């Protein structure tokens, strides 16, 4: 029988490493079981995969690492449901199914030479981290890079070690805040938008990438618009209940757009044009 291209068929990947991020969030490092397939697997920041835990089904997760680092790829996952809890119980060597890369990606080539502003909230940082790493690996192509990150508490911050490195770097402006302080925290306390005044943001010539809880995204977009950002320079991702990941099953439609296929990355200008 000829082999049909099958958009629903996952490839087997193995967990190479598991890193604890917060009490309910872990980063999983994956590599495909088939080396040849792994080497041919190409993707861009902003894209996602459908990850199978066999017996429980599939769920979509964005890449958290940069395609410039090819040996493996990271996915950072919070335990919220049956599938993610099962994943959290898995360890190095365990196998999952991975289908992808799916969806569109963050604008990259089009923003060369521009200033870049990243605004991440909580578990929204991982997809941005993918792009951050990618841009840092090609640092000379971009202007100023500013990263603003907020989480509920210091405990809820992901990539804690890496955040320290970003803080040290001279070619990146990194500011972090938490909603609620904890003993030992000496940094900022407050919601993400309060960081705008500390960051010296120039709306002209800057493209903003936002990822986080829907409420945060809504407020941040409002603030950016009132600062004078053009709507096409505000980039975010839409969160919908994506199931098939390829624009067939109709779970994630907004109007006639499929978040999984036409998105998940949209500019604010595009988002405004979507009919529910």
């Amino acid at each position, binding site marked *: *029988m000829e082999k*049909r*291209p*099958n*958009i*629903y*068929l*996952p490839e*087997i990947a193995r967990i190479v490493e598991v890193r604890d991020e917060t009490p309910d969030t872990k980063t999983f490092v994956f590599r495909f*079981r088939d080396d040849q397939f792994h080497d041919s697997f190409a993707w861009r920041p902003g894209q996602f995969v459908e990850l*199978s835990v*066999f*017996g*429980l*089904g*599939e769920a979509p997760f964005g890449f958290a690492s940069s395609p410039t680092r090819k040996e493996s790829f990271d996915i950072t996952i919070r335990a*919220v*449901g049956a599938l993610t809890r099962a994943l959290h119980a898995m360890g190095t060597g365990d*196998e999952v*199914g991975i289908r992808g890369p799916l969806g569109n990606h963050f604008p990259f080539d089009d923003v060369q030479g521009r200033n870049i502003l990243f605004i991440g909230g909580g578990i929204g940082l991982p997809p941005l981290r993918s792009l951050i790493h990618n841009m840092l690996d090609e640092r000379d192509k971009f202007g100023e890079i500013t990263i603003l990150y907020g989480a509920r508490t210091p405990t809820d911050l992901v990539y804690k070690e890496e955040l320290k490195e970003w803080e040290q770097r001279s070619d990146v402006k990194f500011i972090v805040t938490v909603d609620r302080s904890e003993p030992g925290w000496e940094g900022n306390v407050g919601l993400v938008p309060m960081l705008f005044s500390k960051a010296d943001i120039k709306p002209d010539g800057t493209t903003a990438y936002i990822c986080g809880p*829907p409420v945060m995204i809504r407020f941040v977009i409002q603030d950016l618009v009132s600062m004078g950002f053009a709507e096409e320079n505000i980039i975010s991702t839409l*969160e*919908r*209940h994506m*199931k*098939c990941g*390829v*624009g*067939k*099953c*109709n*779970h*994630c*439609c*907004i*109007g*006639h757009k499929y978040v999984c*296929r036409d998105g998940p990355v949209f500019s604010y200008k595009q988002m405004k044009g979507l*009919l*529910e």
Partner: protein
Amino acid sequence: MSRALKLQKSRWPEWVAALQRTAAVIAPVRLHGEDVAFERITSPSEITLDFDNTADPPKRFLFPQVEPLLRYRRNGGYAVEPVYDEEPRVFFAIRCCDVSAVRFFDFTLGAQDLPDSYYTARRAGTALIALACHEPCQSCFCVCADTGPFLPPGGGYDIQLTDLGGEHYLAEVDTDKGEALVAAAAELFAPASDDDLAQRRALEEASEKRFPSEPRLYFAASSRKVSLDTAEAELWQRMARWCVACGGCTHICPTCYCFNVTDAQRNGDGLRSRRWDSCQYAGLTREASGHNPRPEQSDRVKRRVFHKISYQYVARDGMQGCVGCGRCTRICPGLRLGLPEVGEAIRRAEWK
């Protein structure tokens, strides 16, 4: 490519028997009472050609209500195998609206840039023998959707049969697949005459005239309002009061293909299947966070109509998502949320 043949009416069972030698024949069968539905026949004598339309479209044979996608097995590591159904099938006496719906699936599920291989595997072996309609059925409105009562060449059928009224069916052969079907019993067919073709045209005109003079659904007017989202929110809310969220309108719809995917596992062997889902169900869009972008039934009623008749989807899919079969009218427990009824309410901006 198209050529016209004719077939003696009394001999269609011989043809079907010939077709059965190489393919499963799926045809209308009278079940209990007045119920007529598609069934895989074992003998031509099971087929009824005395029906207005079947209770459900032949959709299930191309996109089953429950369809296995993959088997997986854990034996050390995981092995995953897709499960395809490539059985050759002939849909016999399928109505023009349902032919058009298969065409719609070819554009969407089967879309060439990202084909659903389960659909294309089933579709590749499927041939369509249409039976043109002389009478509109109780709730259909194919004339408004331009999907019937007869189809032109290129309309999606492999062969279209027309009951010429006397001793013969006209058989319009439109594809290579159609030619192969004829070849299965070539001795039964003879070339059609110009008179036969004239008769066919007359029958088509007569059939069109039998549809109500007040079209059941002015697509243009309602589709404009739906596309531009100018129908009042309250109108949707009032309609939704008649919706029991059964999902029937979408399950019975020949062009609906929402699905959900689930895994089932027993003794280490697993099966991933998809099953029909429905935009009328709250769970379709509910996100893990608990947020639901379509929280109210009125949002979901509106969604269905948008997907069926908006310009945006026509542009995206290359074809309108409603083929006018009218089954949604008959399936609705609230009795009023068939597309013609809803479309008329949108056009008139009133819901009594």
